[in-house]
């Protein structure tokens, strides 16, 4: 009976003991130390001793981004602040930024996890790694830097620079690996083409794509235009970081680092756990994180668990990451942005809520940005163009500051928003 595999979480029987032990001690600590988790358990009438097999995890309540925001800043920390050695702030998807803390051990685990993912992508101590991420993913920049340094590679850390300067660094510093989002990689590829630069003159060999799933066509395009091999990594932008799932040398699927995270796939509407192989929302539970344990965190990312074993030696759970989302988050250049967050930014800038607004990712030449259409009504209207322009600019600055992605604001008639089926 003990060797019976835990079916829905698909951890092999010989590893299930270790994973169960980690899960139980995580729950015990979360229950003891975090009043939010304790309360949620009690509302469901359970305590950690009810979790006796990995399958029992489905009895636990979910944690959502809303909960992270409600417990801003330190409400979900499971250790005293004096044990925390780093506090990360991600822009988050609500009015509050998302705060996560790390103990020294947590940082060590992240460094080794990122290093493992990089190693899987063929990065060696001989490589030079360039990191180029938007401000919204700045925390990942630091994590990739430490992970690569742990591995012994040389790192060109994330710095805000124009595409032109990034290309210059890429040409002159001769990095062999670039970590960036698929959107930005496309922008780079387009830039090279426009300037007539030959990617073969660069030393770039590996492109690690993070933040959003790249389609096979997109990957083919990038591999061809930049003359590289692409690798996909998956992470959470808020907490606790990047590279918690990564591709192995077969590049056929993502491996979830299930020594540290327990994955589940659920129906985003009913919350029911789905059988293996079905597409649903990816839910993650931390197994080793000390400062900031997450219990059944709803990522909003859609994925499915692949039942067959991989051709590679690694026995971690395999998933396929899908482009769609289960929530109202937009993924702009790999950065997750919530509609509500944008709306409250607009409200803050204008001093009132817009009657109608819509938002989407758009592209102008090679640049990808967040485009916001605001319907002009009486309250917003002014007969002075200057005035209208100033309002648009305040909105743009505010949302740009809140989300960390480039923004373009356009004032539109309500009818034209409807006509574009964006309302």
């Amino acid at each position, binding site marked *: 009976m003990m060797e019976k595999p835990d079916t829905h979480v698909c951890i092999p029987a010989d590893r299930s*003991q270790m994973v169960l032990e*980690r899960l139980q001690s995580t729950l015990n600590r979360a229950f003891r130390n975090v009043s939010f988790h304790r309360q949620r358990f009690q509302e469901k009438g359970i305590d950690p001793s009810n979790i006796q097999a990995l399958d029992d995890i489905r009895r636990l309540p979910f944690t959502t981004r809303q909960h992270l925001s409600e417990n801003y800043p330190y409400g979900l920390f499971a250790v005293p602040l004096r044990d925390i050695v780093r506090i990360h702030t991600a822009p988050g998807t609500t009015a509050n930024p998302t705060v996560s803390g790390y103990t020294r051990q947590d940082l060590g685990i992240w460094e080794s996890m990122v290093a493992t993912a990089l190693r899987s992508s063929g990065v060696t101590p001989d490589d030079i790694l360039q990191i180029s991420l938007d401000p919204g993913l700045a925390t990942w920049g630091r994590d990739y830097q430490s992970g690569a340094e742990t591995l012994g590679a040389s790192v060109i850390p994330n710095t805000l620079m124009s595409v032109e300067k990034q290309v210059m660094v890429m040409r002159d510093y001769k990095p062999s690996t670039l970590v960036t989002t698929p959107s930005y990689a496309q922008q780079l590829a387009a830039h090279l083409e426009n300037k007539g630069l030959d990617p073969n003159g660069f030393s770039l060999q590996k492109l690690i794509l993070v933040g959003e799933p790249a389609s096979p066509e997109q990957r083919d395009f990038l591999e061809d235009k930049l003359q590289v091999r692409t690798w996909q990594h998956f992470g959470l932008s808020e907490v606790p970081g990047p590279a918690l799932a990564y591709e192995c040398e077969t590049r056929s699927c993502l491996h979830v680092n299930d020594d540290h995270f327990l994955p589940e796939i659920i129906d985003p509407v009913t919350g029911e756990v789905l059988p293996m192989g079905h597409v649903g929302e990816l839910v993650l539970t931390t197994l080793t994180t000390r400062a900031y344990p997450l219990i059944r965190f709803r990522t909003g990312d859609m994925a499915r668990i692949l039942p067959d074993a991989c051709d590679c030696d690694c026995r971690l759970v395999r998933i396929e990451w899908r482009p769609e989302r289960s929530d109202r988050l937009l993924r702009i250049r790999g950065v997750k942005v919530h509609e509500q967050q944008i709306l409250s930014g607009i409200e803050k800038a204008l001093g009132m809520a817009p009657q109608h607004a819509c938002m989407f990712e758009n592209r102008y030449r090679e640049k990808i940005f967040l485009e916001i259409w605001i319907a002009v009504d009486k309250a917003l209207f002014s007969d002075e163009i200057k005035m209208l322009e100033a309002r648009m600019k305040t909105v743009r600055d505010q949302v740009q500051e809140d989300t960390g992605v480039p923004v373009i604001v356009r004032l539109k008639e309500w009818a034209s928003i409807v006509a574009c089926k964006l309302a």
Partner: protein
Amino acid sequence: MLKIRNLQSGYGKLKVLKNVSMHVEEGEIVTIIGANGAGKTTLLSTIAGLIRATSGEMVFKGRNIDGMAPQKIPALGCVMVPEGRQVFAPLSVEENLILGGHILKKEGRPTLERQLETQYALFPILKERRNQYAGTLSGGEQQMLAMARALMSKPALIMMDEPSTGLAPLIVQDIFRVIVQLRDEGKTVLLVEQNAKAALQVADRGYVFETGQVVLQGSAPELLEDEEVKRAYLGKDYGEFYDGKA
């Protein structure tokens, strides 16, 4: 070698262990640390069959040992060195050892002799004192005798309950040196200790118990650096750090 899942155990109505899962691999030293009353001794007593578990599973070398009579468990290769030594004071050192080897009876006198010699080689002081009454030995010598007595049955897994209690620091060092030597000779050790630092310095992995639950686990070097371990060892409750905030 030893796998425990969801163990619940206690004394009468008092529930001590609440859903404990842990395991010990062959050739490891695994330590259980925690404050007084955290359930460390209860865990060992439950594995040894001295206390009946109320629920959960215990598998030793592939065999289910839940509910097995305590006298049958050493024959499977799992012995316990109890807290406070508990040597037979009115018997001589050698008689104590022979008692420890009672399950070797079928293998005959030569095996028993060989085992005695092995123990004397490991603990030379016991050879010097072989004819002395066990009750006249010092605390450290009694601890060595208790360990040697357990080793007489050629166990695969030795469970030790608080071997350092009441011993002078130098003697504690000797005891821990022997524990490492046992591991190096291929034995497996499950070590319960209040002296978290000493235990983690020799162990491969550890579990931290708090009021009958595992709250932390990891490799020994990792735990040694952990602020929480220091607190668990000091016996302070999280409430002292949290109540003001949570």
